[in-house]
């Protein structure tokens, strides 16, 4: 039940194209994978699932647009779904701004499909979990997950688009609990074999032990070194808060009036690049447009937006390949964010801090003020006080309430190594560690 083959998915998509109407598009998405979950050093939940999703979009009478979706995998069901999309389109009011659908294109090479990862069985995942748990130091328990998955996407439309791609992803996360302290580590790679789960387990366990008996620290503004996972949260939020052209057009972007201007430190460059060798994705967006590398922040200057087909047509520019399944109230989003690395090791970032905090990870971040790019969230699983360039002990977790742009304006140095990281599974971004001179912690918790 694995490996349908993206070319076969393309055939399934093509089954929708005879539905009638002026334009027809079919997007097919298949995902299959397993996740082995552990807590208190035992496997407590383990799952495997496979889903296939076909979404048909039809335009009739020139600009009446309807969609319908099915999770069935046979051509007859896809044709029936296309028929429903036609019915929906006929009941919709005209959309004067309907831009049509993209035409055929050549797609960049993107993502990596690793057959061993696609075929990884539950025994393989459980074996990795067992190995990490066996190596935990005495007095340390662990929780986390090992996941392997395969994603295949195909898209066809009546304007001649035929796009198909496949990618794989493997991730391992571990929270080590040493009693009064916890530590955490996570890795994500296109191929399971590239994950060093033993090193992740050791890192989490070491952090847990070092986090024991945290001291209380008064909230306030401190210099910080954010490890890559924490830094990636800032990058992800920034991507969501203003780089989509539709959000910009509707006034829902912090970039309004700031494009071309300096918005943060010249040490900061952020790109969105699905074609990078170290990311996970395919070479086209959900409208069949080739994905392009877009520089969003160029050495501190707000440099560009991402466009879906509709916004690009409206602006008279080329779409950048960031469209979501259309029509979308959200518009385009950057989904392969990367902050470019600097040249300083993480150890040197810490060594350069007179008194401040080393942050492993953030928890439950949320938006406070869009235009100010202010978010709030907690530290967790390894928050350390640094004095004279050395970690001197753990502190109880703190809540930050901080403008991302203000934080990135006080970046002192950028780490040389990057990690592909996600916070709470809401997205992923590649980021280096960051040394930031001023980071505002508004309150503290009890552990």
């Amino acid at each position, binding site marked *: 039940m694995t490996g349908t083959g993206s070319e076969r998915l393309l055939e399934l998509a093509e089954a929708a194209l005879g539905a009638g109407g002026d334009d027809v598009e079919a997007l097919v998405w298949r995902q299959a994978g397993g996740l082995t979950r552990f807590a208190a050093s035992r496997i407590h939940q383990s799952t495997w*699932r496979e889903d296939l999703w076909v979404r048909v979009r039809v335009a009739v009478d020139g600009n009446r647009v309807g969609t319908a979706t099915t*999770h069935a995998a046979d051509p007859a069901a896809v044709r029936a779904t296309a028929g429903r999309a036609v019915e929906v389109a006929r009941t919709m009011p005209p959309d004067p701004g309907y831009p049509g659908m993209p035409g055929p294109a050549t797609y960049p090479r993107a993502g990596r499909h690793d057959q061993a990862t696609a075929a990884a069985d539950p025994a393989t995942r459980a074996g990795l*979990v067992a190995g990490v748990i066996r190596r935990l130091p005495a007095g340390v328990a662990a929780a986390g*997950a090992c996941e392997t998955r395969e994603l295949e996407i195909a898209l066809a439309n009546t304007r001649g688009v035929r796009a198909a791609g496949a990618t794989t992803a493997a991730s391992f996360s571990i929270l080590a609990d040493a009693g009064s302290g916890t530590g955490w580590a996570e890795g994500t790679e296109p191929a399971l074999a590239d994950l060093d789960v033993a090193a992740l387990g050791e890192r989490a366990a070491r952090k847990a032990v070092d986090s024991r008996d945290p001291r209380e620290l008064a909230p306030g503004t401190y210099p910080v070194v954010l490890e890559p996972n924490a830094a990636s949260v800032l990058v992800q939020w920034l991507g969501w808060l203003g780089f989509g052209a539709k959000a910009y057009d509707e006034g829902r972007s912090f970039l309004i009036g700031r494009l071309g201007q300096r918005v943060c430190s010249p040490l900061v460059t952020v790109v969105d690049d699905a074609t990078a060798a170290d990311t996970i994705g395919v070479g086209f967006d959900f409208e069949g447009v080739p994905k392009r590398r877009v520089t969003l922040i160029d050495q501190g200057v707000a440099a560009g937006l991402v466009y879906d087909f509709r916004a690009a047509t409206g602006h008279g520019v080329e779409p950048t390949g960031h469209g979501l399944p259309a029509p979308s109230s959200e518009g385009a989003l950057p989904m392969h964010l990367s902050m470019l690395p600097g040249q300083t090791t993480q150890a040197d970032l810490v060594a350069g801090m007179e008194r401040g905090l080393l942050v492993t990870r953030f928890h439950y971040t949320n938006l406070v003020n869009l235009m100010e790019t202010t978010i709030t969230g907690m530290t967790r699983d390894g928050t350390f006080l640094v004095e004279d360039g050395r970690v001197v002990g753990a502190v109880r*977790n703190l809540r930050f*309430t901080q403008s991302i742009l203000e934080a990135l304006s006080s970046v002192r140095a950028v780490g040389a190594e990057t990690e592909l990281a996600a916070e709470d599974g809401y997205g992923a971004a590649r980021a280096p560690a960051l040394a930031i001179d001023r980071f505002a912690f*508004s*309150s503290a918790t009890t552990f």
Partner: protein
Amino acid sequence: MEPEELTELALAAAVEAGAGYADARWVREETEGLTVTDDRVDDLEAEDSSGLGIRVLVDGCWGFAASAMVDPGRARDLARRAVEVARASAAVDGEPVRLAPAEPAVASWSTPLHRDPFAVPLAERVELLLAACEAQLSVPGLTHAKATVDLWRRRTVLWSTEGTRVDQTVTQTGAGIEAVAVGDGDLQQRSWPNSFRGQYQGGGWEVVEAADLVGNAPRVAAEAVQLLSAPELPERMTTVILDGQQLSLQVHESVGHPLELDRILGMEAAYAGTSFVRPEDQGRLRYGSPAMSVTADATTPGGLGTFAFDDEGVGAQRVPLVTEGMVAGFLTSRETAAQSGGASGGAMRADGWGSMPLIRMTNVHLEPGQGSLDELIADTPDGLLLSVNRSWSIDDRRVNFQFGVEAAWEIRDGHLGRLYRNATYDGRTTEFWGSLDAVCGPEAWVVWGVPNCGKGQPFQNARVGHGAAPARFRRVHVGVGK
């Protein structure tokens, strides 16, 4: 092939492969989401998803397998795969899972509907939302208007090797408007009846009609415009009254989640987190003031957590969680109930066919007190009325929280005064609930819907309800970071 035949086939294959216990859930989920922005349909999503999920216990280890593509052969394959998954879990030693006894359920149930929302013509829905947007845009100074209607229906056929045979259909409907005002580098929003796409309840088109989107549109739009020129809420310690919308999320984050027994036992440690509450706190921990009583009630009409049976086939129940400020119980499953020596409270819910059930909130209510919101305001010499959630965050043991709301009105000498923008407040859970001194009465009590509660790996979404009436808290820190 009928769902009952598929589930029966799957159960037989699971037992043959070595499962000591198995349940099979065939689920069909239909959704339709419509978004109108200003004068055009901005988004229309319609999905119809069905599939089969099989959960097995083999030698005390869980295994689960699910697929959208189901025929008799695949149903048997899925069952065998679930057993394979369970067997692999034995690679790590651990206490075998035991299930608290539960009487097998054999029943059918459906959400009562006045008008099936899926039968409401799309054109009628579009017309309503366009009118709601037009009514908002009639207010000078408004930048954008949005109006939404969301329909959701799930049929679950649950069979187990213990004899459970449940066929249940839950229908829920949501609707709302969002008025956005942009100017001078700021963006302000007011929503009705609630933020994040409105109010959701179990039921049909009557939920949309009750929201009166068009009638409320001018007021909501005017408040959004007023917020643009309102002062920022300054920092101070003060009395606050939370409206029901905001209070429902306060209950969700700082009461519902901490009292999930899987979190308390560490089963969600790596992702959603744990809880400051310990298993032995039942009957011993003071959670809040005597004005605080909280109940998990899956039988409440109109709740998003309302059903007849959970996804283990356990019947819907009303479970006291906090009684007059003392911890009285937890949200439980058959597995966690076995560990604590009780019976399941019926809180196991899965996000569709593709997910293992987890302990989720049902309808977690703050029980009403007495009096109206007007009376509560009149009884407050100095404070703030905080209205409708805008932002939320809480630590991984559910102690330190921070919320933002769309609007804050000053209360002076028992009357509402000036409007403030960008209002936030923070606190710690038991201190905050200890400061509760009044809850409005049944006439102000509404079952609010939270359709986007995240938990679990793989990520699962749950739709939960919270009955709440406006309530007053003393000495609250507001204006975080101002």
